[in-house]
């Protein structure tokens, strides 16, 4: 699926993910978390990878199912950006009163915690973000240890 890099397409992104998740048999919670993960990273790509840099372009979404997992790939040609390098809130930040928070990184925090695996690579002029969700209960057994 190819979409223009605009926040107006976020609903289309979520619908694409919902369809892919339903076909993969994911439960409601995993589906929502995957939608949230893509929504957050796509938003970042659009606002910072393209718009803040004065660039225009597309985002490309692909979905691949294996017996074990659903893999969503997001590609863009905005500025190079690895979400994993973003400083995320830690326990201390998350325990602060909202009045004392200069909140940053919450979106990426929710995105990365919402999937079983998140990867990034830069290939030529493309950013490639990969989101993996296990289709079985393996996910709960491996747990979501805090870091």
């Amino acid at each position, binding site marked *: 699926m190819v979409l223009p890099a605009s926040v107006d397409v976020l609903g289309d992104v979520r619908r694409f993910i919902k369809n892919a998740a339903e076909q993969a048999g994911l439960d409601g919670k995993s589906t*929502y978390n995957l939608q949230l993960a893509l929504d957050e990273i796509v938003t970042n790509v659009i606002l910072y990878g393209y718009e803040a840099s004065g660039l225009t372009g597309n985002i490309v979404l692909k979905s691949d199912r294996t017996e074990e997992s659903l893999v969503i790939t997001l590609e863009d040609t905005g500025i190079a950006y690895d979400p994993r390098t973003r400083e995320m809130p830690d326990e201390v930040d998350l325990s602060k009163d909202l009045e004392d928070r200069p909140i940053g990184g919450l979106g990426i925090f929710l995105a990365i915690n919402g999937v079983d695996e998140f990867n990034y690579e830069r290939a030529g002029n493309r950013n490639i973000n990969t989101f993996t969700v296990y289709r079985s209960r393996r996910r709960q057994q491996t747990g979501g240890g805090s870091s």
Partner: protein
Amino acid sequence: MALTSTLTMENGVAKITLAGELDASVAGAFKETIEQAAAQNPTRLVLFMEGLDFMASAGLRVLVFAKQKMRSDVPIYIIGCQPPVLSSLEMSGFQKSVYLQDSYTDE
């Protein structure tokens, strides 16, 4: 699905009902509603979220804005969140600063 955010004032209490999906494309509209509520100097802010099917971090940031915009003695109540939205709020530590409740009755 678009977002609707409706503000009503009742006896000094600002009540906002949210429905639809709250992402970065519509967070500005929600923020404007918060600003309208704050301008009334409410004694408390109550957000009814039963009809909110999705909330991204853009929505969380507006809630942070709300907490910082209102006087510190103005409590914020969030009512009837759907489980995934509630999960995002709790993962982000918001339960320490706002009241998360299933239902709300005027005191």
